């Protein structure tokens, strides 16, 4: 059995194919970086995995469950967490409330009317607030956080969900060197228990953390393998790392 597998995934908008017979397999407890030039279909792939868009054809399997075409919340409940490219936090809620919403152990609206405290929440909150360095900022409205802090908050929210697989779209965009270093150490720690898929343009960061690099181009798989192989691959250099050609 495979942990996570995409089989012959296709997606077209009207008649324009965006994802074209894309297949990959992701091994449990690894960190896979998804790279590719703009328009390669990275974010669309994330959308298809998490149910925001429905594939035209193909299959997505997660722990042997077919999750193709399920709704966003059903996929999230199965254990796939997602961080967005443009940090999406609840700006008019406090940092603490953001993390509280993300701690989604109970999701039934009627039961939640009568629920005021979530068992295990404050322990998890302490842990993740420390991990993401937000302990001092818990009472603050999320809308006034700096860009870097907002990134941290959204990473913290994904962690609160305690997903088995994390999809992170450009998690270090807009972070300082020191913050990136901290992210690297968190991701290395996470890899011991979770599986991560990271979309990232920052090749230095990719080099630091990736076990496997998957390169997409025009909606298809171009190459997959360890970073050293990828950087030596002439096709990849041509379409993506490009500069040497010119």
């Amino acid at each position, binding site marked *: 059995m495979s942990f996570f597998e995409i089989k012959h995934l296709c997606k077209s908008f009207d008649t324009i194919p965006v994802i074209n017979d894309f297949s990959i397999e992701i091994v449990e407890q690894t960190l896979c970086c998804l790279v590719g030039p703009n328009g390669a279909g990275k974010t669309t792939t994330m959308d298809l995995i*998490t149910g*925001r868009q429905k594939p035209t054809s193909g299959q997505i399997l997660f722990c042997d469950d077919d999750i193709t075409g399920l*709704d*966003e*919340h059903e996929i*999230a*409940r199965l254990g796939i*967490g*997602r961080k*967005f490219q443009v940090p*999406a*936090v*609840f*700006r*008019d*809620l*406090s940092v603490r*409330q*953001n993390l*509280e*919403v*993300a701690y*989604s152990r*109970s*999701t*039934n*609206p*009627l039961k*939640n*009317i*009568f*629920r*005021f405290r*979530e068992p295990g929440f404050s322990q998890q909150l302490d842990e993740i607030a420390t991990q993401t360095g937000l302990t001092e900022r818990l*009472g*603050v*409205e*999320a809308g*006034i956080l700096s860009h870097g802090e907002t990134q941290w908050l959204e990473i913290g*929210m994904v962690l609160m*969900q305690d997903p088995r697989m994390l999809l992170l779209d450009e998690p270090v965009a807009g972070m300082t060197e020191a913050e990136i270093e901290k992210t690297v150490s968190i991701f290395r720690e996470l890899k011991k228990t979770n599986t991560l898929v990271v979309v990232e343009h920052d090749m230095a960061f990719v080099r630091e953390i990736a076990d496997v690099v998957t390169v997409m181009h025009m909606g298809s798989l171009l190459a997959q393998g360890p970073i050293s192989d990828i950087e030596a691959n002439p096709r990849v250099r041509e379409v993506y790392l490009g500069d040497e050609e010119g």
Partner: protein
Amino acid sequence: MNLYHNVKAQWLAYGVFFVLLALLPTFVSDSFLLNQFATYGVFGMLALSISLCWGFGGILNLGQGIPFGLGAYGMAMTMQMQTQDASNPIPPFMLNNSLDHLPLLWEPFRHTALGIALSLVVPTLFCAIFGGLMFRARVSGPFFAIMTLAMLSAWYTLILDIQPYTNGANGITPPSPLKLGDYAVDPYSPVAYWSVLALLLVATVGAKLMTLSRFGLVVQAVRGDAERVRFLGYSVAGYETTVYTIAGLIAAVAGCCWVVLTQYVSPAQFDTTFSLSMVIWAGIGGRLSLIGAIIGAFLIQGAQSYLGDTFLNTWLLVLGAFFILVVRFLPKGLAGLVESILGRLSVSSKGNGNDVAAHRLYPQPGE
């Protein structure tokens, strides 16, 4: 920290507010006036339901007259049937509309308990089904508001059209007060006033607790970014439908009380102007504050009763102008004004370094 966001202070404010309202009959001996104040309680419930749905859930609902009207018609039918007996089995207006037997639609309302139950269940079910269909299709924001408005007009036309069953534009005027067992609820008595107030209290406390619960938190997250909430594993449609339906239930209770107090119902309860004014009450009082919305309803309806006579037809213009001013300068309504005044006070009284942080603290849910 701003006192406004202190949950204990909020409960205290609620307590004071309701105690003052409960003491009102000791000062007001005019039973007509007391009846009028009781109807303000009904408007308070409606404003509360709008605050819950629009303020907390972010669902602009221009059709709150639907559950209100359905509840009101149910109660009016129940009260009407209480006055019919074996010698006089069907309401007089039906005879005028050449019906010779009681229509099936009216049969259940011959039993008071069943009639009252239906007055609450039917509007609630309507909201659950209509809301469920809309929210599952991800209709939201202004599109949902337009759908509620269209649905409201449809109900208005329907009620007007089936004259043999509803007496059309004339409405239903039950000749005697509601009887619960042997007890007749005199709409002009302090008991009627206190009963409405008790229902308003229950609705307010329930709504307040709901905003403090996990449900309330998720609903507020949905208001901020519904898309994001889905990826955390919550069914957004489920939350939206639930908050819309609970608001509908409160409006249905208000509808029942309205008929008990006025002994009258007509298609005017489904009028768009009435549903829009509920939104204006909540907007002026402060849609993010439950109690603010209730006070908004009291102020506007009170002003309409007393100033409306002076201004006559220009009253609507005055109200409209006031609403525009509030939207422009006080987007959080009068409650927002209280919030910023208390915020200033807490900053100037402490004057230390924590103030900046305190100033940025997020307003707690519920106020």
